[in-house]
């Protein structure tokens, strides 16, 4: 189902979704990030891309699994599976959209994660195609994506200067478009051609080239023990930016947080975790299978370009470029992958 949404009627559409929690990119503290759309919010979809991907709405930084307390000597557990309002996220870039199917795979293979899916099923992602790759480090087309791919999205909007071309993709997408009612107009015949022209132009814009993407997996396996990793990770400082900002990183930690006067009352909490931190794989004996930053850089790159391919026949990198732009010391996954493939 395809419609036209004039930009001035965007607000009208959002207002019809009153039982949804609507989030849209907002420019605050000189960064773009998702913020809740209130009555007086001026929705602005001229964003480059948000700092945090929409992954946070299904896999938040902090998730309480259950509360525990002692009731006459016996521990009583109260599971806290979330039951959120239906959530609609506007302005999702296709690279972030493509990240969600990777996370869906992880959180459903072999065991189904009830906390992730309680949020994920209520989440509707309204994508906005990239008319021109915004950052110096975009490489979505090199990893099988495109500036207007629909993977993982429920709706795809394309900006046609004064109006959006809106295409419903999934059930959830069709439902929110129907709710919009007369906020939408019929698609005229030249609209389709214009959309195709805009998409073609977006595809032709230069992106960060990746040498031979198909040879990467094999190269990583062959170069597993090469000193190249040591040299590339030389100035890594082991922070969490590259993984916390990544649309497909899903590693987490689980801890008990005591909330009462004694250890018997508290919460078991899941928080994001990061393979670059020293404690991530450290055994309680002190033995650490990945004790140095070179092994950890290799793990991050291998997980996305080798292990995920071996397990799920698809890469776990959508080419959004956040880990490159965000890295304090300029470690660049495209350069890493190129060097490993070339040597």
């Amino acid at each position: 189902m395809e419609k036209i949404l004039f930009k001035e009627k965007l607000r009208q559409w959002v207002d019809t979704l009153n039982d949804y929690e609507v989030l849209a990119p907002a420019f605050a503290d000189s960064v773009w990030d998702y913020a809740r759309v209130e009555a007086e919010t001026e929705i602005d979809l001229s964003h480059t891309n948000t700092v945090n991907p929409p992954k946070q709405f299904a896999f938040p930084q902090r998730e309480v699994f259950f509360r525990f307390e002692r009731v006459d000597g016996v521990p009583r557990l109260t599971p806290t599976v979330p039951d959120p309002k239906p959530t609609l996220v506007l302005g999702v870039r296709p690279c972030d959209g493509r990240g969600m199917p990777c996370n869906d795979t992880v959180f459903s293979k072999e065991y189904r994660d009830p906390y992730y899916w309680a949020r994920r099923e209520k989440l509707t992602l309204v994508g906005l195609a990239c008319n021109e790759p915004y950052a110096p480090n975009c490489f979505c087309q090199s990893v099988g994506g495109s500036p207007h791919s629909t993977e993982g999205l429920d709706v795809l909007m394309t900006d046609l200067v004064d109006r959006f071309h809106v295409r419903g993709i999934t059930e959830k997408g069709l439902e929110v478009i129907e709710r919009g009612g007369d906020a939408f107009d019929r698609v005229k015949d030249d609209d389709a051609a214009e959309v195709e022209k805009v998409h073609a132009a977006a595809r032709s814009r230069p992106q960060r080239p990746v040498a031979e993407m198909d040879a990467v997996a094999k190269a990583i396996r062959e170069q597993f023990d090469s000193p190249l990793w040591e040299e590339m990770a030389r100035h890594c400082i082991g922070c969490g930016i590259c993984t916390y900002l990544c649309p497909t990183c899903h590693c987490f930690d689980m801890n008990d947080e005591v909330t009462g006067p004694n250890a018997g009352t508290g919460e078991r909490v899941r928080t994001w975790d990061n393979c670059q931190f020293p404690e991530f794989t450290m055994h309680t004996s002190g033995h650490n299978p990945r004790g140095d930053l070179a092994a950890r850089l290799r793990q991050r790159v291998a997980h996305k370009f080798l292990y995920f391919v071996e397990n799920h026949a698809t890469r776990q990198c959508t080419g959004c470029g956040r880990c490159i732009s965000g890295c304090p010391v300029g470690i660049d996954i495209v350069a890493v992958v190129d060097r490993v493939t070339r040597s």
Partner: protein
Amino acid sequence: MVNVDELRSLAAELLEQGQVRSLIGYRRGTAGVLAEPCTIAAPGEAETLVWDPTCLNNLALFLVEERKQQAAASAPDKRPVGVVAKGCDSRAVSVLLQENYFKREDVFILGVSCEGTGVIDPRKLSARLKGRWPTRVEFAGEDGFKVSAGGDETLVPARELLADRCLECREASPRLNDVLFGEVVTERGFDEPFRAAKAAQEATEDARWATWERHFDRCVRCFACRAVCPMCYCPECVVDSTTFVNTPGTSAEEKATRIRWCERSANVSESAVYHLTRAIHLAGRCIDCGECERVCPVNIPLRLLNTKLEMEAFQQFEYEVGRDFERPSLLSSFRDEDPNSFIR
């Protein structure tokens, strides 16, 4: 003007004669317009060294990494390490010397003066270019930058792109150095020192808390501000359980009774303990290189916490951080005329 060729030839010479075992500097990055840190050991690599307004990193951090590897190495190479240092970076080296983290003879400082300008703030640059990609930023004359983006080049006055730390910088040339490239500059025509902290202090108590509650809430605890700080060199950070080190010798009691001063959760109360602990542990040690604020992915104004304490140290205790590494540090010294009125 800093003559980059002289810098490169001196670097090559130092490595050639083996005066330094390696040299830490900046080179062109692959990840965008910013220069990236590099460590070179062969004289031939000196060609790759650059010096331009995108050399943001505080390279003292890599002196700390070098020192840690040195301590772990079985047969350490005793020669010093060369480091390219701006005014702020050399003040960081000075504080590290003050804390005996390494000896003065362990480091050879190639001082570079920022002279009339300084380094850029990447966010101000991208805001100005509205999404167009900058490919190069160079020093251009006394008070401007030449920005080349998408084929055309524009001259931009320094004030519009300078990082806040440079606007408030009190001494743009490294006082502590073995060799200095560029002129000594102590007068700066930009903001007066601690301007941002003074401004933030004016807000009402509730307004201040509302701002900082929002910042602590947005923090995702990626620990980049700690990882990038040369002063945060503790092997185990007391508020970051991901750095707790277990060795075969660590007893079960030690591990079991380790205090968790704050939980790993990224909510307001725990992130507040993390950031406030870091700020107080940097009192009298932070030289305002601004890297914590620069690397923060959600752009929390962390410099404010540190410059507030630096201002108090300067105003109440007449203590200038990184000024002179022979002097006792702020919190291990006192004066009779320290403020006493706040104690009832």
